[in-house]
Every structure is written in structure tokens, then in C-alpha cells.
């Protein structure tokens, strides 16, 4: 950054960044990008209220879903989002494909690239997999979750849900509770919420709050009592499958639940409760909290569809969105 020559002043630099090619992490986005995507999501939500839900917007485009990890919500909503926009969708799962035969991610990317897909949506257990696919295909790449790194469309659908429910994000206090260490959802959400002007506190047992994470601009606490100060309590799943055996992050799930479980009596009336799913009921959240009226968990799932429609549409039509939105409504 400091290397910019003093003679190259701001006004001499190009006025706009080049069109965004991929959605790999939240830091790829500026606030204006998020606002545009949320507005576009609202437009798509209105379009889905009609009897015929399909839009011709991405007719003739090809979207490949490449999933190396199990997923219900994310893979189904990306698939449906692409279909609602009339794109051709091809879904590839790691099991039952050449990946089983030891094919490298690079070779899989090159193979898929031969079909000239417009978008590759990838979920992978390793950080940086979407970057590698972006390097070896000409497609727009959407990260549907890479290891513990990022899950940007989850963060966008969470922002959308909060904005729809509470009317805005700026100035809100959000507590993210639980296994932050293993959570890509937490990382993307911290960045997305801070970008939109919310304040974020991470709450959980010491070993599950990574050292140094407060440098992202959030605060941390080991006291579950602090969630009472929040407008939104965002509960994370205990990711047992990502934990190293014998690492003793917490002595037991029983003790975790007793100390950090989100229960009805730890919440204040009117607080909104969110969870990215799938839930471990009785571990990080109890039934009462999950099923109460202020829980937005099902709304999050519904938001996933329109937000992913917006992401796909936006990547494939880099123009000023206002104009395009009008076009969509006309066609629909």
C-alpha cells in the first residue's frame, strides 16, 4: 500500500475497480456491493411471490455446483436459485466422481472448464480451494464454503434476514456464540456485519475463540451473560467433525451446554436468534430457543434462495443494477 508513488494521486487512478469476477470472501466486497446485492435479493423475493416463479434472466448460462462436503441447504438453494433464473445446472458431488479415483482439484477444475461453465459454485473442506478453481477455469467462482475460511453467501443471507426483520444493520449489536475456531460462518459474518456498521461480540469457551481474532474489529467474551446485550444472538454449530481428536477444546459437551448453550432463560424478550444450520439441538441451542417466535432460523433458509439468485445474477451481469432490475420485472 505504501508503495504507491506519490505522483500517482487518487484522481489519476481509474475511477472504478474492474468488474468483480468472483465471490470468494467477504473482503472481496465493498459496502456498496453488499447494498446492491441486498436490494437485488429483495427484488427477487418479490418475483418469487408470483405464481410463475421462473425468470428468464440467465437463460443459456451454465452453473456448475461442485460439492466436496456434505450440504443440504447450500447445495439445494444454489441449485434452485440457478433454476429459478433459467440457467442450466449441473451438480457434481465428490463421492461417486473422479475425485474418488484420486483426481486433483486442479484437474477436476480443468475438466469442468472444458464445458465452459459461466459459474462454478464450490464447497471444499480446504481453505483456498475456490481460489485454485478460479486460477484454472474461466468461470466466475462462488465460494459455498472453504474449510474454516469463508462462507460469503451465508453471511449475505444473514445480513438480508436481519435487514428484513429489523429494518437495518447499522448500529446493531450482534453476539456470535459458540465454536468460532472452526467456523467459516463466523469469519464471514464478522466481516460482513462490521462492513455494514454493526458491532460484533464473539462469545464462547477460551479455546474455541481464536487468539488474535479481535484484530478483525470485534470484541470477545467467555461469559454467556453478555449475549443479553445483543439485538441478535447468532448461534454456531459445535463442529465436532472438524475438531482434532483429543484436543480438549472443552472438557465435555455436557459442560459446554451448561456454560454456553443458548437457552430460553439466557435470552431477553425480543432478541432475535439465528443459526446457520444444521442445529445440534440440546447442545449449542435448546428446543425452546430454536422454536420460539423470535428465532429466524427458517427465514434464513428462505433468504438463502433469493440471496443466491442475486449473487449469480450479479456476477453474470456486471452493469448498473438499477437498470437490470427493471428489465427483470418487465420480463417477469
Amino acid at each position, binding site marked *: 500500500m505504501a508503495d504507491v508513488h506519490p505522483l500517482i494521486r487518487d484522481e489519476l487512478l481509474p475511477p472504478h475497480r474492474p468488474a468483480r469476477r468472483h465471490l470468494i470472501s467477504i473482503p472481496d466486497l465493498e459496502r456498496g456491493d453488499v447494498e446492491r446485492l441486498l436490494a437485488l435479493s429483495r427484488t427477487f423475493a418479490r418475483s418469487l411471490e408470483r405464481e410463475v416463479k421462473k425468470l428468464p434472466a440467465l437463460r443459456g448460462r451454465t452453473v456448475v455446483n461442485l460439492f466436496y462436503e456434505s450440504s443440504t441447504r447450500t447445495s439445494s438453494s444454489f441449485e434452485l436459485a440457478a433454476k429459478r433464473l433459467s440457467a442450466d445446472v449441473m451438480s457434481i458431488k465428490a463421492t461417486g466422481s473422479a475425485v474418488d479415483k484420486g483426481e486433483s482439484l*486442479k484437474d477436476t477444475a480443468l475438466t469442468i472448464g472444458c464445458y465452459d461453465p459461466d459459474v462454478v459454485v464450490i464447497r471444499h473442506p480446504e*481453505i483456498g480451494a475456490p*481460489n485454485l478453481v478460479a486460477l484454472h477455469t474461466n468461470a466466475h467462482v462462488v465460494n459455498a464454503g472453504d*474449510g*474454516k475460511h469463508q462462507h460469503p453467501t451465508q453471511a449475505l443471507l444473514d445480513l438480508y434476514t436481519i435487514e428484513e426483520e429489523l429494518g437495518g444493520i447499522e448500529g446493531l449489536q450482534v453476539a456470535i456464540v459458540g465454536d468460532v475456531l472452526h467456523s467459516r460462518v463466523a*469469519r464471514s459474518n464478522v466481516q460482513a456485519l462490521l462492513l455494514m456498521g454493526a458491532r460484533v461480540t464473539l462469545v464462547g469457551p477460551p479455546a474455541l475463540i481464536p487468539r*488474535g481474532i479481535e484484530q478483525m474489529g470485534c470484541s470477545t467474551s467467555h461469559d454467556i451473560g453478555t449475549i443479553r446485550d445483543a439485538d441478535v444472538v447468532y448461534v454456531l454449530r459445535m463442529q465436532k467433525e472438524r475438531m482434532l481428536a483429543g484436543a480438549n477444546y472443552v472438557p465435555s459437551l455436557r459442560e459446554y451446554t451448561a456454560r454456553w448453550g443458548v437457552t430460553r432463560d439466557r435470552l431477553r424478550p425480543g432478541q432475535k436468534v439465528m443459526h446457520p444450520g444444521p442445529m445440534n439441538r440440546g447442545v449449542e441451542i435448546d428446543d425452546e430457543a430454536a422454536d420460539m417466535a423470535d428465532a429466524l432460523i427458517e427465514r434464513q433458509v428462505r433468504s438463502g434462495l433469493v440471496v443466491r439468485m442475486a449473487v449469480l445474477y450479479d456476477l453474470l451481469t456486471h452493469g448498473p443494477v438499477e437498470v437490470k432490475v427493471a428489465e427483470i420485472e418487465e420480463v417477469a
Partner: protein
Amino acid sequence: MLAGKSGHDDVVILGARAVDPSEGMDALLDIRVDGGVISRIEPAGSRLDLNEHRVVEGEGYVLAPAFVDPHVHLRTPGREDEEDMSSGTRAAAAGGYCAILAMANTDPVVDSASVLGALVEQARTEAEVPVGFLAAITKGQAGEELTEMVELAEAGAAGFSDDGRPVVAPSLMRRALQYNAAAGRPIALHCEEPTLSRGGQMHEGAVSAELGFGGYPAVAESLMVARDLALARYEGEGLHLLHLSARESVEELRAAQSEGVRATAEVTPHHLCLTDEAVRSLDANVKMNPPLRAEEDRAMLLEALRDGSIGAIATDHAPHARHEKEVPFEGAPFGVTGLETAFSALYTRLVKPGLLELGTLLERMSAGPARIYGLERPRIAVGAPANLVLLDLEATWTPSETAFRSKSANSWLLGANLEGTVALTMAAGRTAYSA
């Protein structure tokens, strides 16, 4: 202890700025090499008798004692697809090195006199620059039984190391130090407490927290450094600490040195030039063990290099096949190459901006490592074998995948603009590289 191709050249190098910090030399000189030995050193322009010698016009260049790399992975035997005796030593010669030490973590491990003997033989016919071989401390580097250290020392082992792995059990580490009193070679230690580094992909800190990578905390190194220094102090034995990365490790080292423990240490170019911020690129060519650490660590390593508590620069040249590194960061093996870029990287990133004296850099790349391993110090002196490097400090270059003699190109400097190139390397009296 060192083995390489034989041969002796006759060369005259005219008018170069000869810099040998250990000899207090910095002057424009004409130098004649007869039969591989420096025979005349005269002020520039003194009309040396050229005989039939090859004449090298050195005007505008720096002539220095050639470099010694105390830490190279030649991948031979076992992974000759990544590096072999010939390619690795050609890379060394191109980087200005007149001698390198190869680590024992090959397949099979260098843990018996027969494996060691075969390598020494191979080096005699294939190595462009002399190579010394370290032998393992424990059989198979499994951390259970000591190797036959005395026999290995007699067979020519340059030292002992399980590099790539720590010696986990304190009792075994103690025995190795005790027994080495009989073997009498440097013991070089990879300090890593494995239960603390488990699952670690990069330095544990703000960057790993943000990116989500498993953390490899600084204390995983410094705790093992402290343990090994405590054992060395107790046994009255010396030791050498490989590739230090953490500030706390340097503090332990200095404390032990000030108490008289015979402890030496090395640092790599990448730990001197980069921090964990580089990992934001998710480029597998910045993944190494120990990992790149924070700016305070980097600053402390540089300070320790300047004041001499860290006496040597080591590349930890670790070639890897392209397909192994062209994967997501977490799946990639640890290690980067360094033989062909070490001088340029350090000259560009540290000497040019005024952070390190050229003389200090030259000393820590040559006399420093030679002293640690008891090797003859490369020097510019009449009667010394020609171990010389001619450097063009004005020239610039950009490493690319096709630019290397090494079989592997997993360099953290691909695409970087570097200053300073090697024009000529003489190793043990033989011209090993000529640009």
C-alpha cells in the same frame, strides 16, 4: 567431510571489489588462481602475469568468499523427481555456494554408514559443488533409537540431525547429546513441540484467526528450544538450532549463550523477509515449517543476525513437485526452495534498504555457517583454495518457473524483482558456475 567432483581451474579475476569481512578486506584487487588455489593477490591494475589462464573482467563486480549453505534438502535418495545430486548442486553453484550440507530426511533415511557411503560416492562423481551429509540422530528419524553415531562420524557425517522432525522424548535427546561427546559432530535440532503444533498450517496469530487456518504457535518452537538448551547446559554439550522463526526462541538462545552454552543458530531468507501476512495470498509457496511469523519475530531474527547471536543464513532449500504444491494451501507440503535466490533476496530486501550491511550478509552466508560445522572457511587469501563468488550488484532479474537449475520451482520469489546476480562461482578450486 565434503565430497564433490574434482578438478582445478586456472583463472585470473581482474579489478573486482574484493570483500572478505573475516579478513578485513575491501579493496579493488586482481586475483590469480593457479591449479584451484589462490596464488597472487595484487592491487587492481598491477599487470598480473595472465599465463594461459581464463581471464574474468571483474570491474564493477564484488568478489567474495563463496557461500556455504548449512541446510539443504537434496531429496536424494528417494525423491529424485524433485531434486537430485546434480540438479541440487547446480542450483547451489548458480546461487553462489561453494559448499552445502544435505539433510538426512531422505528415503531411506541417512541413518547407516552404508547409505551415507553411497551418497558420498555419488557426490564425488555428480556434485558440482562439494556436499557434506548430515546423518540422522535416530534410526529412521523415528525418535526411538540412536543411530550408530560414532561409525557415522567416521564414515564422514558432517553432523547429526532429524531435521523435519523434533527429537520428541527428552530422555532420548539427552542421550544423543551425551553420546555425541564420543562422535564429536555438531548436533542440529529442529525444535517443534509436536502436540502444540499439531494441525498447524501457519503461525498462530491474528492472520490465522482471520483466515481460519490451524495455528502453529511460536511457543511450539521456543518451548523445545528452551528444553534442548537446558539439556545442553546440563550435559555441557553444544548444539545448533535449525531455522529459528520465533522471537522467544532468540531470547532463549541469547540467554543460553550468555551463560556459556555452546549454542549456535541459523535463520532462513524467508523468515528474514516475510511475515505471516504473506499467507493471505493462500499461495502454497509461502507454506513452510517453521511457519512465517509476525513482524516482531522477523525484526528480532534480523537483529540477532546482525549482532551474531544467529551466526548463519540457511536456505532450508526444500524442493517439492509441482503437483504437490498446486493444491489448496492446507493440502500442500511444507517447504520452499532457496538456493538460487538467497543472496538476491537478502541483498534486495535487506541490504539495499539499509537494514543489513553487505559485509554482514556475506559473513553470515559463508564464514558463519562454515564455523558452526567446523568446515574450512572460504576466504580470499594466498594459499587458500578458490572458493569464490563474483556478484553483479547492479544486475536485476525476475525468478520464473523456468529460470531454475533446481528440478523444483516452489519459490516464494516467483515474479519478484530482484537485484544482485551471481556471475561466477568457484568451489574448491573448480569453476562450478559461470553466467
